[in-house]
């Protein structure tokens, strides 16, 4: 077991190194001189030359890369051109809003996608199955940004049931900062008004993100449930007279969920990019919206900082997924 974990950690190191190389290469693809970009069009040649030396741009490329990595390790992601603030601190400040959105989206997509996947597997080739699969195909074929606009059009503009932008109603003050997640903070402070307002604001963007991944969840749960339901131990359990509900949701689903954990890890990539798109649709003050502003202003330190951060989080999350297999599936331990 320790050997597997060690091997995975080694792999993590290798992949993270690869990630930094890729990000470094991308940041060197940016047309024009970074020093010129940072100082703006009216900078004197002398100021540019000074900054080039300070940034180490006159050093050999390998030295530049090593400097880049050592900066990253020290948490120095550079300075935003738009705001002149340190990139990392700024990004971290936006993370709670994005995290809250992603967490609710994940909860929604599991709460809806898993039962739907089970039902379509059990009622295979009936109208329920066809409907479920049709919806799943639609789900993976629908652009998230468009879905967000449609939900906004329907539930905000037409029906007026839910707010269309921001995190709180005007006039509602944010709960005292503990975690930065308004739902948690408001609950801790016992502020039911802020909690309800925060929840209402979360519903549309989180549902949009969730709907985008439900299709994948349904398709995966369906196929792995079908496989598991055909196994001998299920037939044995059925012969023992175990109730249908228990059979499905305890005996079968437990094993069908194993490949699903991997997908959760991979879905994180969709959520990370989805947050950029969805936050801009719903004016959600999170990381994604900040990055979008950076894109429009060609603020490369922010864009690259986000890319490095998102990549490292993603790699680490998938490492956790791999390790969770060891707990979920004893067969892997035995082979290890």
């Amino acid at each position: 077991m320790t050997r597997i974990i060690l091997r995975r950690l080694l792999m993590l190191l290798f992949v993270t190194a690869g990630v930094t190389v890729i990000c470094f290469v991308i940041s060197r693809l940016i047309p024009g001189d970074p020093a010129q970009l940072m100082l703006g069009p009216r900078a004197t040649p002398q100021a540019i030359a000074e900054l080039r030396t300070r940034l180490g741009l006159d050093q050999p490329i390998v030295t530049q890369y090593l400097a880049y990595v050592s900066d990253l390790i020290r948490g120095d992601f550079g300075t935003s051109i738009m705001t002149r603030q340190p990139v990392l601190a700024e990004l971290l400040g936006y993370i709670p809003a994005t995290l809250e959105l992603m967490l609710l989206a994940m909860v929604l997509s599991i709460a809806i996608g898993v039962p739907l996947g089970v039902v379509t597997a059990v009622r295979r080739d009936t109208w329920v199955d066809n409907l479920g699969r049709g919806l799943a195909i639609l789900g993976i074929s629908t652009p998230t940004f468009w879905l967000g606009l449609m939900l906004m059009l329907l539930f905000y503009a037409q029906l007026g049931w839910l707010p269309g932008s921001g995190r709180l109603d005007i006039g509602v003050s944010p709960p005292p900062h503990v975690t930065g997640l308004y739902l948690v903070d408001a609950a801790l402070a016992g502020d039911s008004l802020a909690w309800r307002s925060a929840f209402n604001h979360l519903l549309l963007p989180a549902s949009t993100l969730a709907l985008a991944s439900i299709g994948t969840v349904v398709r995966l749960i369906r196929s792995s449930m079908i496989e598991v339901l055909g196994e001998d131990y299920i037939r044995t359990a059925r012969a023992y007279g175990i109730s249908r509900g228990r059979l499905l949701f305890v005996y079968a689903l437990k094993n069908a969920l194993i490949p699903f954990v991997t997908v959760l890890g991979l879905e994180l990539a969709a959520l990370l990019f989805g947050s950029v798109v969805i936050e801009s649709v719903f004016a959600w003050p999170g990381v994604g919206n900040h990055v979008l502003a950076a894109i429009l202003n060609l603020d490369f330190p922010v864009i690259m900082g986000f890319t490095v951060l998102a990549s490292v989080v993603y790699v680490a999350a998938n490492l956790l997924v791999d390790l969770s297999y060891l707990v979920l599936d004893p067969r892997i331990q035995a082979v290890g």
Partner: protein
Amino acid sequence: MKPISIAATLPLALRTPLTLAAAAVAAVVCFVALFAPWLTPYAPNAMDLNSVLQPPSWKHWAGTDELGRDLLTRIFHGARPSVSAALGIVGIGTAFGLLIGTLSGLLAGWFDTVVMRLTDVVMALPGMVVALALTAALGPSLFNAVVALGVLAVPAYIRVARGQALALREREYVLAARSMGASTWHLMRAHVLPNVLPPVLVFMTFHLGASILASSALSFIGLGAQPPDAEWGSMIGAGREYVLGHWWYVTIPGVVIILTASSFNLLGDALRDWLDPRLARDKA
């Protein structure tokens, strides 16, 4: 496998009404992309400030935008960049992935190890986020978005092709050809590539659907197609400011994207069942 006998079963693959409908939609989209200029009486960038933001009518079937441009015309013309972007992304992925993947599986050894570790790194990245950074770095344009998305898709194709080639490597007829002195190039072209193609073809079909979504998403946030060019994603991006009160502006291009992407996804399903009848039987 004999290509002719497989081709003879093509009508079987198109048997279900849903697959037939998907094939029809895909055909219509390609037709529209090819013949866009002759399908409507308007030019895609012709402004008419006397009829801005008009709802759908007999004169403008899909309404007009904030500059009075005919939206149906722009949707038709938008099929060109949207479809060719998807084809470009899939093309880059296939060209490099098929070649490197097949070679990697066939040669095995150190080449295979290096290729696999490199694909591990790229596939460990959140693809769309990196595509976003890469496109921003190359400069916002649809061409650069296609290059970024295409390059990032190569490892997935490598995996598909390599897995298949690795399995074929030990087959008797390949071993026989090798023992008779066939060169690696000949082995690849005559014996391995034709049999690597089917799973790659299935992957390509699904990837077409995903690529339409990916390139339109980059265009939506301003990194892909640039104004005034008509492209489905950037049309929705431009229309979002007017979404309240002018439903048709963003709704119709979105429906077109969904129809196109889902038709490719359905065709991918059908193609997979056709090339791998085992799955189709499982389903029945």
